[in-house]
């Protein structure tokens, strides 16, 4: 499948009658990367599908007014991250009791999730990651699994590089400690 150039996609969006084709090219290029980014935040496949759809609808609506000050990739990641965090907040609000730990519930359902293919150590790692605060978890996932540069992460998460490095360092220490306790 051809990898479309961001500039071509953005130009296509502005041409009347070509918007849908250009948007389809954007989807082909980024849907899978955004899916995995969201999946690592919300964990469940169905939830990820909902968040990805909401993200892409927002992208579709906002594309005509998108100014290419920041790259398309960072803009898409920012929308996806915000949508995933909003989804988690709503899920916490919908919890029947305030003391219900949503992350703990997600962690429990991970074992019976038909779309979780990991082994025992991968399960423990995911359960440890779920115990991190939301934003620290995102930083850890982006660096550890996707190897996103701190500079790009800084634009996506609107946080300084120094703060991101510190956050990742703390996350690694916590996860090591949690895995060491098991």
């Amino acid at each position, binding site marked *: 499948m051809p990898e479309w150039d961001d500039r071509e996609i953005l130009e296509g969006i502005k041409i009347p009658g070509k918007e*849908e084709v250009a948007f*389809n090219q954007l*989807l*082909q290029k980024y*849907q*899978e990367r955004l*899916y*995995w980014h969201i*999946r*690592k935040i919300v*964990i469940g*496949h169905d939830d990820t*599908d909902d968040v*990805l*759809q909401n993200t*892409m*609808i927002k992208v*579709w609506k906002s594309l005509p007014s998108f100014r290419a000050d920041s790259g398309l990739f960072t803009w898409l990641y920012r929308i996806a991250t915000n949508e995933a965090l909003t989804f988690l907040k709503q899920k916490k609000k919908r919890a029947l009791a305030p003391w219900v730990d949503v992350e703990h519930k997600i962690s429990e359902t991970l074992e019976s999730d038909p*779309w*979780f*293919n*990991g*082994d025992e*150590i*991968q*399960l423990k*790692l*995911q359960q440890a990651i779920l115990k991190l605060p939301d934003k620290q978890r995102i930083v850890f996932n982006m660096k*550890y*699994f996707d190897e996103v540069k701190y500079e790009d992460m800084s634009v996506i998460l609107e946080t300084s590089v120094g703060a991101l490095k510190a956050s990742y360092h703390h996350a*690694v220490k916590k*996860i*090591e400690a949690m*895995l*060491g306790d098991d």
Partner: protein
Amino acid sequence: MKKEQNIVNLQHESLKKHPFGVPDGYFESFSERLQKRIREDSASKVPVRRMVTTARIRVAMAAAVLGVALISYSIIRFTAPNSGSSGFYPDIALLEQLQMIDDDSYLMELMSSRSEALNEEEAFASQAIEYLAINDVEMDLLFE
């Protein structure tokens, strides 16, 4: 020692692989499903807006009619004569009526008692004048 082992494990390449899977053909069908949802959203948007607008207009009209009715009623009620003592507070109106009756009777009693007193004085004066006239006493002496 155990901690060091965990550090090595965390840096192991096998751990960095995504442990999640997706249903078959998910990514192939995603674009089609999304574009269908976008079309449905844009198609259902107009009637929903119209419904909301119509409902808002109806509520606003009902509120306006109710407001006009309330204002009219208040004007009629509070600007009509004797509005304060009739209708709204029947007990107070009754008390005021009784008070008025009491005041009238008190005045009548007062006036009648005063007239009786005056009549007695007049009778006494006329008797005195008759007596003085009979006994030929000069009137000037009386006022000295």
